[in-house]
C-alpha cells in the first residue's frame, strides 16, 4: 500500500505545472474581467462595465448561439458514432486493431494539422470534398457564403474526434461480460431487443458522463477549425464563443472584455455539466 503522502509527492510536479499554466490564469480571469486593460497602458478599474456591455453585445449572443448550435449538432452525433464504432470494435477479430487505431488517430493529430487538411479538402476550386458537395445539393463554395452550411461543416469536421469516446465505450462494453448477453440470447431476445433493453441501458451512465465531457470539450475543439477554416464567417455564422474571446483579447487587445467572455463561457459550461450530472444522478439512483 502506497502512503497518501508519497502519492501527493509524486503528483506534485504535475500539479505545480497545472497550477502555474491553468489554474492561476483561470483564477486571474475573474479580477481581469473587472478591469479595462489593453496590455500596454496601466489597467483601469471597470467594475461591472465589461459584464454590462457583454449583456448588450449582439455579437456575444450571436457567438453563444453559434457555439450551442455546433454543440447540439456535434455532441449527439459524435456519441452515436462512437457508440456504433465501439459496438463494432469491442470484440477481437480481423481488422479490429486497425479499426481501433484509425478511430483514435484523428484525436491525437494536432488540431492545426487536421484543420489545414480540411481547409485543403474544402477549397471550392480544387478541394475533393468541396467538389463532392454538389452531389448532395450544396454549392462547392456554399460554406463561404451561407452561415448554416459553414456551421454544419464545422460540426461535421469534429465528428472525426471520437477516438477517446470510442476507447472509453469499448472498455465499458467489454466490462459488461458475455453471460448477460448469452442469457438474453437464450431468453429469445433479438439483436435489436438486446441493444435497446440490455446494451443501451447498461452503457447509459458512461454515455451521460461522456456527453458532459464532450459538451465541455466541444466549446474548445470547434475553436481551431473555426479560426483556421472559416475565421468566424460568413456573416459571423461560425463566430464561436471562445473565438470571440480570442479576437477581443489578442486582436483588439481588450483583455478585460475577453476575460468577461471567458467567465460567461465558464458559467455556461458549469451549467451544462451540472444539468447532465443531475440527470446522471437520477439515473444511477434508479439503477440501485
Amino acid at each position, binding site marked *: 500500500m502506497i502512503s497518501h503522502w508519497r502519492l501527493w509527492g509524486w503528483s506534485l510536479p504535475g500539479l505545480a505545472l497545472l497550477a502555474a499554466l491553468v489554474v492561476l490564469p483561470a483564477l486571474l480571469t475573474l479580477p481581469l474581467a473587472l478591469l479595462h486593460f489593453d496590455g500596454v497602458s496601466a489597467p483601469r478599474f471597470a467594475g461591472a462595465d465589461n459584464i454590462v456591455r457583454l449583456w448588450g453585445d449582439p455579437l456575444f449572443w450571436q457567438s453563444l448561439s453559434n457555439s450551442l448550435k455546433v454543440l447540439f449538432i456535434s455532441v449527439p452525433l459524435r456519441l452515436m458514432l462512437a457508440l456504433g464504432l465501439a459496438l463494432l470494435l469491442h470484440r477481437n477479430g480481423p481488422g479490429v486493431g486497425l479499426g481501433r487505431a484509425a478511430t483514435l488517430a484523428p484525436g491525437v493529430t494536432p488540431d492545426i494539422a487536421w484543420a489545414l487538411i480540411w481547409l485543403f479538402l474544402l477549397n471550392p476550386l480544387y478541394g475533393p470534398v468541396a467538389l463532392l458537395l454538389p452531389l448532395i445539393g450544396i454549392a462547392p463554395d456554399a460554406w463561404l457564403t451561407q452561415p448554416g452550411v459553414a456551421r454544419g461543416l464545422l460540426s461535421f469536421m469534429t465528428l472525426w474526434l471520437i477516438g477517446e469516446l470510442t476507447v472509453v465505450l469499448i472498455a465499458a462494453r467489454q466490462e459488461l*461480460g458475455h*453471460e*448477460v448477453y*448469452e*442469457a*438474453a*440470447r*437464450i*431468453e*429469445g*431476445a*433479438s439483436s435489436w*431487443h438486446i441493444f435497446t*433493453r*440490455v446494451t443501451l*441501458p*447498461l452503457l447509459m451512465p458512461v454515455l451521460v458522463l461522456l456527453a458532459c465531457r464532450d459538451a465541455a470539450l466541444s466549446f474548445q475543439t470547434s475553436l481551431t477549425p473555426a479560426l483556421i477554416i472559416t475565421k468566424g464567417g460568413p456573416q459571423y455564422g461560425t463566430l464561436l464563443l471562445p473565438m470571440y474571446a480570442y479576437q477581443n483579447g489578442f486582436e483588439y487587445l481588450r483583455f478585460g472584455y475577453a476575460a468577461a467572455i471567458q467567465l460567461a463561457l465558464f458559467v455556461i459550461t458549469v451549467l451544462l455539466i451540472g444539468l447532465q450530472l443531475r440527470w446522471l444522478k437520477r439515473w444511477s439512483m434508479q*439503477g*440501485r
Partner: protein
Amino acid sequence: MTQGLELDQLVVHLDGKPVLRGVSLAAAAGERVVLAGPSGSGKSTLLRAVAGLVPVQAGSIHIDGRRIDSLPSAQRDVAMMFQSYALFPHLSVLDNLTFGLRARGKSKTVADERASAVAATLGLSSLLARRPAGLSGGERQRVALGRALLRQPKALLLDEPLSSLDAQLRSKARAEIVRAHAGSNSAMLLVTHDQAEAMALADRLGILKDGVLQQLAAPRAVYARPANRFVAQFLGSPAMNLFEVRRALDGALWWRNARLADSAEAPVHAGSSATLGLRPEQLSLPGSRWAPASQNVAQLQARIVDVEAGGDHQIVWLEAEGERLAARTEPEWRAVTGEKLPVTLHLDQACWFAPDGEGVLL
C-alpha cells in the same frame, strides 16, 4: 418420439481442441440428470452446446424428437441458469423474470401474471420491485432459477447453480431447486463439481472426464458400483481406498507384502491380480460399531497416522505397506496416533477393477 432431451455422440471442439468426445445421454421430461466431473472435464461446455452457445462438430441434440443442434439459442426451447446468475443489473426482479416472455412478444399482463406465480413458489413476491444489486446471494440465485423456469422450457440447464452460495444456504437451495422443478415437464441437466450436491439432486448421475461420459446411473449405484477407478476415486470423500491385490497359487490374497486372507471370495484367479476398491466405511477398526456385517473379510495390520473429526463420524487415516488408507468410525471411537492395530476389510460390497484401471470385474 422420445420426450425430453437426447444427446447422441456429441463432439465439441473449442479452439481446435476436443472438449467433448462423443457424449451420449438422455434426460426424460421431468427428470433431473446431474453431470459431475473435475474442472476441465467439459461439463459446462456440454450445457453450452445444448443451449447453442458453442457450435457442435458432430453428433446430434434432440428435444422431444426435434433436432435442435443447428438452431439458434432462441429457437431451442431451452433455458439456462448461469453460475454467475447473469441477471440484468438494470432491471427489477420482475423485469428480469419476464425478460424472456416479453422478448418473445408476450403481453405485459400475461408475463407479469406468470412471473408472480413463479415468484410466489420461490418466495420472491416481496422483492419484485428490487434490482439485483439490492438482493442477497440466495435471493439472486432464486431469481435466476425463476427466470429459467418461467418459460417452462423443454430443457432446463443449470450450470453450477449453487456454487456462489455459502454452505448453509446450499442445502436449502438444493431443496428449492427440487421443489421448483417438481411437477414441471422440463428435462433438467445440472452441472456441478460438488459431490454432495450431485448426489442430492440427481435422479441419475453422470460422471464426466476429459469429455467422455464415464458412467450414468442412479447416484446410489454410481457410489456403490463405480464403472471404473476414476469414478470410484472421484465420488466419495475421502476417496475410495484402492489395493492392487494378487492371488497366490495357494489361494491366499496378497497386497504387497501383506497376506490379507487365506481364502477370500474374490474375482481373481490364482496367479493373477486385480484392483480392490473399498470405501472408508468398508474398513473397520477393532471395537468400532461402524462395520458392516459381512462374511467375506480380510485382515490387515496398520498404524494410525492421523484423525479427522467430523460431526457424526470421524475419518481415521492409517498407514499400511507404505500407503495411506482411510477408515470411517463413529466419533466416539478413541483413536491414538501411532497405535498399531488390525484392520478388517469387508469384501462383501467391495469393488473389483481390472488391473489397468478401466472397467470392472465382477
